[in-house]
């Protein structure tokens, strides 16, 4: 396979005393959309937070475009061109929608313009002066994704972007992800909903108990359905 944009190898991470990740290994090529599937508590979110340096207590190797980031502070990692959209969305209550949208600083040239973001998420344009947390769940998710598209980051880490959203919003998020892929973004997606993941992703990794236990291409999803049901317990 082509040289990886992000290569994670033997990643261990801890929350306080508890050892959450036990040697996670996977990689993402430039332009790919890759998902991490797995049950609750498998370590998917911790993997993302370790990549971003939000979980600071981590060991192993995380290389982004050839740069080792395991020893870097969170803000330095972001400045290499990664951006994170957390599961809880992280919209700030003391900021209005416009301030939330404009908050993340530019880390590289070539981010989407504000008009393109409104084209993707027209609802945001109408709500610019609302308090961030007054938006609906779907609008908050759009804001959380929209604000990291401005920054010029080329690798997006999206943690369960469809969680708790109405089907029509889920479709809109799916269309956005496909559009972003076409625009050249590389995306790592954490999902519980593999039916949604199948509509956007190139490849899937399955996590269990802090390990990556399986990997398959999206085209092989049907052939692996039995295994997948067992992994996810659905």
């Amino acid at each position, binding site marked *: 396979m082509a040289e990886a944009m992000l290569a994670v190898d033997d990643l261990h991470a801890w929350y306080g005393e508890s050892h959450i990740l036990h040697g996670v290994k996977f990689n993402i090529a430039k332009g790919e959309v890759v998902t991490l599937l797995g049950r609750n508590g498998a370590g998917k979110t911790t993997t993302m937070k370790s990549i971003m340096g*939000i979980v600071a207590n981590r060991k192993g190797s995380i290389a982004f475009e050839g740069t080792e980031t395991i020893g870097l502070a*969170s*803000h330095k990692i*972001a400045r290499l061109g990664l*951006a*994170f959209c957390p599961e809880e969305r*992280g919209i700030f209550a003391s900021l209005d929608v416009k301030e939330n949208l*404009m*908050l993340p600083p530019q880390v590289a040239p070539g981010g989407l313009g504000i008009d393109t973001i409104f084209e993707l998420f027209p609802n945001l344009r109408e709500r610019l002066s609302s308090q961030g947390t007054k938006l609906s769940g779907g609008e908050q998710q759009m804001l959380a994704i929209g604000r990291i598209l401005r*920054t010029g980051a080329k690798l997006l880490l999206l943690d369960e972007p469809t969680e708790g959203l109405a089907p029509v919003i889920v479709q809109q998020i799916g269309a956005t992800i496909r559009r972003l892929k076409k625009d050249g973004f590389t995306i790592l997606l954490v999902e519980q909903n593999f039916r949604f993941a199948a509509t956007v992703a190139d490849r899937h990794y399955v996590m269990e108990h802090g390990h990556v236990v399986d990997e398959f291409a999206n085209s092989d999803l049907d052939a692996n359905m039995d295994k997948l049901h067992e992994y996810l317990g659905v």
Partner: protein
Amino acid sequence: MPDIFGIPPQALFGQLLLGLINGAFYAQLSLGLAIIFGLLNIINFTHGAQYMMGAFVAWMLLNWLGLGYWWALLVAPVVVGAFGILIERTMLRHLYKLDHLYGLLLTFGIALIVQGLFRDQFGSTGLPYRIPAELRGGTDLGFMFMPNYRGWVVVVSLVVCFGTWFVIEKTKLGSYLRAATENPALVQSFGVNVPRMVMLTYGFGVGLAAFTGVLAAPIYQVSPLMGADIIIVVFAVVVIGGMGSILGSILTGFGLGIVEGLTKVFYPEASSTVIFVVMVIVLLIKPAGLFGRAR
């Protein structure tokens, strides 16, 4: 002019002005505390000592280096702010993830040490600090005679308080600060150097205390205990306004200064306790404070 409620207007307005001055000091000090608590999660008990240090730096600049009041307004906040940054770098930063109590104990201990050192060096009697020549004398406003320096203190405090409020609530820099107060880890993951922002914020809050100390030096005497005296009242102001609210601490500071001044006119016996009475009442009715959000 006739008496108002049996009080000569000159006395009433005089006390009102004094209340406003005290209120200006309360507002600036509680503003600094609110900003520091918001971002650092630290109840900065050293604040009073840092206010006192500001006044002393002004005194030292004048008596040792011959640099007057205007220089002191500029230099004292920088020097004391740098001292604050040193404390943040070496000690406070290890406490952010712990309970408030640890930060409170550490900063209280530092306050005691700083006060002790100054008392050892300068004694407990106050040292005089002259009003700068440009602001001596007074102005007849018709209804009262206003000492120029007191007018200056009120005006400059209003400018500093609302300038700070504006920066925090209305600018890009302020949006980083507000966001980091809510979720520092996420803001840092966007590429903002939050640890540096925290350090500079502490430096700013401490510098603001020192600036207030310089303003206070010509009104009160410069004394090692001046901070210990005022900080207890300021904490009451913070509790009444609601911990962490920027506008709340400004309005509450000025408001309570005026309440205190009026009490001095109408019932002087209660003037030193009225703020604590207000605190008890507010805590009974609205435990999060007048402007605070329940956490």
